[in-house]
């Protein structure tokens, strides 16, 4: 995987992880172009995109787009599942994750991502193991702030 971007429906970047060395200027350009391209796509369209010489795999979860860039020989479907597993991990960790959790605790989202993907490759795909590792590291940390947003919507 070359990079992973999370952005909102409004085009605001929520998370970016680059696994290939690029200059800041390039990163900005790529992000801008890609956000635009992906947001322009209609809901029933294919989750894969050919973009420059890369393959983009994206999926929308509620208001948040998860978007990965892979190389041509990589498997698109498994990349979709990588996205999905990441969402599952976030969901389990935050407990019914929503975009706000990621906005306000983005460093946590990064920690989880680093425990799941390392150097662009799936490192640990067992949900239990990833969360165990995160929890162990968290134990050394003060209590994180949990947004109480249950009154915003009913589950």
């Amino acid at each position, binding site marked *: 995987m070359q990079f992973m971007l999370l952005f*909102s*429906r*409004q085009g605001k*970047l929520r*998370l970016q*992880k*680059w*696994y290939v*060395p690029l200059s800041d200027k390039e990163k*900005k350009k790529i992000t801008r172009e890609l956000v635009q391209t992906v947001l322009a796509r209609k809901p*029933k*369209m*294919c989750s*894969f995109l*050919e*973009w420059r*010489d890369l393959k983009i795999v994206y999926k929308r*979860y*509620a*208001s*948040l787009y998860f978007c990965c860039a892979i190389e041509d*020989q990589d*498997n*698109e*479907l*498994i990349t*979709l*599942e990588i996205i*999905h*597993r990441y*969402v*599952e991990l976030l*969901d389990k960790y935050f407990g019914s*994750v*929503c*975009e*706000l959790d990621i906005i*306000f605790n*983005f*460093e946590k989202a*990064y*920690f989880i991502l*680093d425990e799941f993907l*390392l*150097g662009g*490759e*799936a*490192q*640990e*795909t067992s949900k239990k*193991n990833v969360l165990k590792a995160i929890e*162990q*590291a968290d134990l050394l*940390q*003060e209590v994180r*702030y949990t947004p109480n*947003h249950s009154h*915003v*919507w009913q*589950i």
Partner: protein
Amino acid sequence: MSDVVEKTLTALPSLLSLDSHPGSAKLSSTSKLGNLIRGITELTSKHEEEKLIQHELLAIKEQVSSPNTTMMKELMVRSIYCEMLGYEASFSYIHAIKLAQQGTVLEKRVGYLAVSLFLNESHELLLLLVNTVLKDLQSTNLIEVCMALTVVSQMFPKDMIPAILPLVEEKLNHPKEIIRRKAVLALYKFYLIAPNQVQHIHNKFRKALCDKDPGVMTASLHIYLQMIQENPDAYKDLTPSFVTILKQVVGGKLPMDFNYHTVPAPWLQIQLLRILALLGKNDQSTSEVMYEVLDESLRRAEMNHNITYAILYECVKCIYTIHPKSDLLEKAAKCIGNFVLSPKINLKYLGLKALTYVVQQDPKLALQHQMTIIECLDHPDLIIKRETLELLFRITNAQNVTVIVEKMLEFLCISEDDHTTIDLVGKVAELAEKYPLKYNEWFIETMNTVFSLGGDMMQPDIPNSFLKLLSEGFDSVEEDRKLKLFAVNSYVPLLRGEPGKLPQRFLQVISWVLGEYSHLREDLEPAEVLSLLAKLLDMKNSSSETKSWVLMAMTKLCKGGTDASVTQEVSETYSSSLDTVLRQRAHELQYLSQDPELRARVLPRGSCGNFAFVSEALAAGAAPYKPPHQRQEELDQSKALSLEPYGLSLPISMSSCSITDRQSPTLLSMSSGLSGDTLKLDGVKRVWGREGYLAQREPVEEAAQVEVPSPIQSPGRQGEGDSLHSQTPTQTPTPEPEQEKQQLASSLFVGLASQSSVSLMGKSEPTPQRFRRKAKGQGPGSSFNASEQISSSLISPPSAVDNLLCNNLLDSNNASELAEQTSQLSQRLTTANGTCHTEAELTEPDTKGCNPALRRDNCVVAADPGPHDDPGRLTEVCLDSYLPAELSGLSHSEIAPLCANQSLNLSACHVQKEDSLILVVFIINSSESAIQQMLPAGEMTSHSVAVGQYSLTVKRPAVHVEVVGTVSYQLPAGTSQSLQFSYKVPLTSFIRPFVVSTEEYGTMWLSFSHDTKQNLTLINDNQEPLTATLNALKKKLQLHVVEVIGMEGIVACRLLQDLPCLMHCRVNAGWLAVWLRSPVPDLPDCLIYHCQRALQSL
């Protein structure tokens, strides 16, 4: 679970816009980060955001640098946030490193995260992190070790790897699996950025592969995938291990933790499948090891979930990559069918992708799904459309090319993506140039669209090869004239319209064509063309490159008289231009328009294709053209001054002068016009120079690419395709609206499954090969010349000069010969490089089915030889015994595998006999079933070997002669198949000594017209240098030394059957000056090439 997420998250969208909502206000008020985020979402303009962030950054900057900040972690997170919004916070980088270094464990974690987000591996600050990482790797706190390994696997300065490598290696033995796993991934990263550094620990990778923890083992597969990609042969021994692992995974032997939606370790499965594909590629015995587990994987992946489809897709790819097995292929094909037919768009896309991947091997599969493909062509999602076009591109043949190109152009009109446009334009041009023969007008129109749409983004070689194709033309003079006239006719209205809208490249093409061919249109006054061209010069957006093309064209057109005013004006305007090239062109225009006589000499009308001056010059004793590689070699070899007097090679040396010295203000450079159109291109376009250089670098490889299956070669097959096709649509009664699609289908899939298209798809490398011009070299009697093949210097005009001349002589008889040959032969053995070079003469196909007893003995052997990693040795051992008895005593070349499919393996070698060269083709039936109606062998039982021998002769010499053939056969199931092969023989195999007396030599010498001169290196061992060199040549190339007198020697040889070549050698200033003469064009050039090689290899 995912449903829950979906439900939960769907409630969200309204949230962000509700910033003033009490909930979110409460949310963000608690921390500074919260404040920042809330503040930003409240803003309405980018400008306000910028102000706020700058303010924030200032605040952070102030706080981080105060000595006793307790908020470091929080500040870092805020910096990360600002960076994510696109604002630079570079002042905080150093603090991130400090935090990772000095902070508590918790702060460290944020510090490392910030470092990994802020810096990339080439950042100099990263060096400051090395010590921290070193310290943490040795920490007793596991969390710290994990953090260090995590950051190292993401980024680490390449040069500092040795500093921490021992520590990371040590971690491979750590009792905790999480540490071992991260260590493996860190080593993977090292392997990617500096493979040499980790070479010595390859055996430790093996240990990781055998780790008892599946997670560590999975991590090690990343390294293996990478290493096997680079060198599959080195890891063949691991195949059984990978297969065993996959078996266990598929069989559900892993802990439940590794399941993903009840599918066992899908990531691991996919990784293994990719590795197996690499290992089994072109390797039958390795492939056999994995058939069973592949079958099992296909069977197990049944659940209707994305993840099983991901595995299936990888399985299918693997099955089509490794040595084929029919029942697996069948299942894989079914799988692809399910993908293509799936209502889920993602699966459909992958189905198309898989089809594109396999269609080269199995064109019928595309035929099966033709209606779906047609539907996908009209799909609202451009990605699906695009992938469909990619698929169609692979199945293009002479019959469906117009429809497919039309579809591509349609797509181009709606596509807005530059990358796609460049790619598609290249493909259209490739197709148009590949099949221009029948459709002159179509060709020009298509290219016009390509130029207009592709604009200035497209690859520069597209216009170049178009012009070359136009200028060299095809077989018939009349057709050529029509083509050129059509081009002119289509360009004039464009210029009369709004030329300002046309891309520069197109304008350049137009001006060149008008300059060269507008005279073909009789009702068109040159004056009008001149004024149209002059209009281009006045356009604001014309680049100076375009202007120089235009001026060139005007120079060709001006005739003085009435045109004088336009040209005068133009030349005056540009003769003071700051651009030296333009200035030169303007001067040329000025002089030549005033001196019609000089102009007529320099730019003869219709100079294209008329190279009489070359033959004149040659007759006057000028040195013939030498391909660039030869000149280069000469240059390399003879750093010394040449003491040879200059020959009368005026036109050619002048033209080369104009290339190198374009800026020269003298009239000399005008001689570029002398050598015809192609040279003029040189004078104007820089690109040529680069291409020429490329050609020099890889002359032989280029030559190898020459083979392009010809669409015209098998007109008989078209009928087959048609009839086959007409069956397909009639199978089902069609409702009305379907008919249009059916019609489209019949035009798209015509000719598929017939041999002509199979050969087309045999082109396994989809790399666009732009110089399609070569393709027409296969047409009977078309132009192609050996010197070009040597050098592949497609842009070297004088070679084209030779070329056309020779072909005029050879054209007629060659064409007829070919026709005769092909109709006689049962095995279609033709030459790849067109009929001009080689002609395969089949002596009666002497095929031997082996007797049963023998067959049983060789059963294993015969089944085995396939294109192994070391196929040469293996096959030779077994196939040697099959050499026909009368040849077995003679020396033969190594038996090389040619190609293979699921049922046949082909190998070949050549045997040099005194008066002929025999090509021996071994056809091995590697399948379990008998093969029927095979041409030329008749029938073959399972695992038997048939041998065919063919005597080869060369009609036109080339450095390497390539023979192409087809074996067609029928499987018991009744499907007829064919297998194409090509085989390359160096010209030297056709050379035999030629025994003549000195007198005979003298007479012949004078009568031979084609010659070449060159200085060769002398061999200086103890012997007398001339004798030593001649002896070496004699030994290596089978030449006959006629006589040696003092410092001169004469040598003779013949090309089979009886085409003599004489060689005159003289020692001169430490070099061997060689002069070759022959009645055969190109033979001297080719021979001198081999002489050079022979002497170099000593």
